[in-house]
């Protein structure tokens, strides 16, 4: 009996905190489903539910374009990060070449450079290439050394015998990577994909700096500038925020453990 009480306190504390963490998002969804007129009262009945705000943001202005931009940037970033990281990860983990360790260490060193600190010079470089307002500018800087780290760690665990026997069968590096190794490290690839997707989807400062035309903006930038009109059209702003919130959230619901794996890896690198 004596032991039960702390457990109950524990659970209550946990549930209250959980509620506190999700309430703003619940508020966002509820407000996005209400008609504008009564946006400030908190009463909510099912008969009030309307998708008018969602219809309106997608049918007027550039919002659909922003959504597509975000999708293209996030998926492009995932594809590029997976490609670069698995090629390099395979090379560092399984191939013998001069400077293997040194190049790896050098790439890992770039992780200590905080991304917000190099935003101005990065802008100058991209502008020098003439890439301002292009998808190249938004996607190409996305892969990080962290991806290489994840893939190298994963591929290190692939048994040497499997690779040797594929080699005897006459398979080249690309075929070995594609047919033998990648199927065995799918889980790590998924972790990397999710991390890159969420990072790219939520990226803020870089899209803000590297796009000047309204048509090239991504969702977070659009949502943050929608707020100027919130007093009149709060339902619209909340619908915009909800659309920005949902894709990472849905991935999170499906793949919770992968998110946590990625974070644990990000702790290991230091």
């Amino acid at each position, binding site marked *: 009996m004596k032991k039960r009480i702390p457990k109950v306190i524990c659970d209550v504390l*946990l549930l209250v905190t959980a509620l506190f963490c999700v309430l703003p998002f619940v508020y966002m969804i509820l407000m996005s489903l209400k008609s504008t007129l009564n946006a400030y009262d908190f009463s909510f009945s099912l008969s009030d539910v309307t998708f008018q705000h969602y219809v309106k943001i997608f049918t007027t202005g550039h919002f659909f374009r922003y959504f597509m931009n975000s999708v293209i940037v996030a998926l492009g970033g995932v594809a590029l990060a997976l490609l*670069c990281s698995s090629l390099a990860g395979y090379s560092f983990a399984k191939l013998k070449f001069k400077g293997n360790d040194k190049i790896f260490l050098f790439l890992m060193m770039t992780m200590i450079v905080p991304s917000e600190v190099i935003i101005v010079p990065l802008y100058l470089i991209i502008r020098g290439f003439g890439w301002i307002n292009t998808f190249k500018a938004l996607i190409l800087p996305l892969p990080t050394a962290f991806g290489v780290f994840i893939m190298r760690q994963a591929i290190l665990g692939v048994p040497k015998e499997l690779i040797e026997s594929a080699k005897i069968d006459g398979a080249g590096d690309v075929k070995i990577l594609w047919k033998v190794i990648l199927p065995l490290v799918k889980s790590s690839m998924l972790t990397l994909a999710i991390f890159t997707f969420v990072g790219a989807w939520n990226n803020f400062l870089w899209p803000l700096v590297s796009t000047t035309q309204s048509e090239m903006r991504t969702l977070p930038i659009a949502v943050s500038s929608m707020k100027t009109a919130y007093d009149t059209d709060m339902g619209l702003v909340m619908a915009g925020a909800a659309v920005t919130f949902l894709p990472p959230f849905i991935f999170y619901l499906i793949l919770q453990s992968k998110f946590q794996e990625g974070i644990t890896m990000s702790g290991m690198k230091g």
Partner: protein
Amino acid sequence: MKKQRKFWRSIAPYGYVMPISLILLTFVVASLVISVIFSFMKYNLLLPPEFLGLENYKRLLTDEKMHLALGNTLKIMIMVVPLQVVLSVLFATLIAARKNSLAGKIAKAAIFIPVISSSAVVGTVWKTMLNGRNPVIQGFFSAFGIDTGMLLGSSTTAIITVAMIMVWKNFGYYMVLNLASLTAIPDSYYEAAKVDGGGVMQRFIHITLPLLKPAIIMDVFLSVVMSLQSFDLIYTMTGGGPSNSTLTMVMYAYDQTFQNGKAGYAMAVSNLLFLIVLSLLMLQKGFMKREASEI
């Protein structure tokens, strides 16, 4: 023929590491180099850069707005880091203790939701909640004597408000990091302590905390680096205002470049921030080493 194939085999690995190397060299390494060079220049993004010598760095010493931004950045760090680390350790411990209960599972999942959300969403929703004339929310905060409308509107409370929302958004990240270390502690340690009659607090202080120490050092370091780079959430919620009370260093560098056309000076500001981060990294490495040698 065979020789040629051997040659290709020997250089192929360089080809595989080439794409990521090129990306990191052009976007990260070159950025650092440019940042150092241009911090000695006057550059307004349009006219060719002019060499200024140490002028930009001298200005860092006298520029009051820059001191304000540095001060705000440090204030945010001081408010965010301890709270974030304490909360993340507390909740990691609670969740580890209740990991098989429904409440533990719900909390673990829910606390992480703000982490995966965009700062633009978090900022917009909190801003709307605080500024919207919603009687329920106003009532809740006024029970604690807080006027929600003033939280972001007053230059004394705005920085505290954004710092608290940062803590709310990010402590789940560190909680997951801690949880990974916590679950690695064998149950037998706790069983042994129980047999010896150790209470909950004693077990926490003598078993959990010492074994969690490397994770906590990591938490502190990461959250220091993150809080020094604050931009997204503040840009969305206050835009640096009211009267520059939430202006951070990253935001100041952004403004100097894109509003005032002082890119050279902005890079000097960024370099100062990078130096702060680097020196903290050295400090953390030192701590980690000492930690390792103690074990």
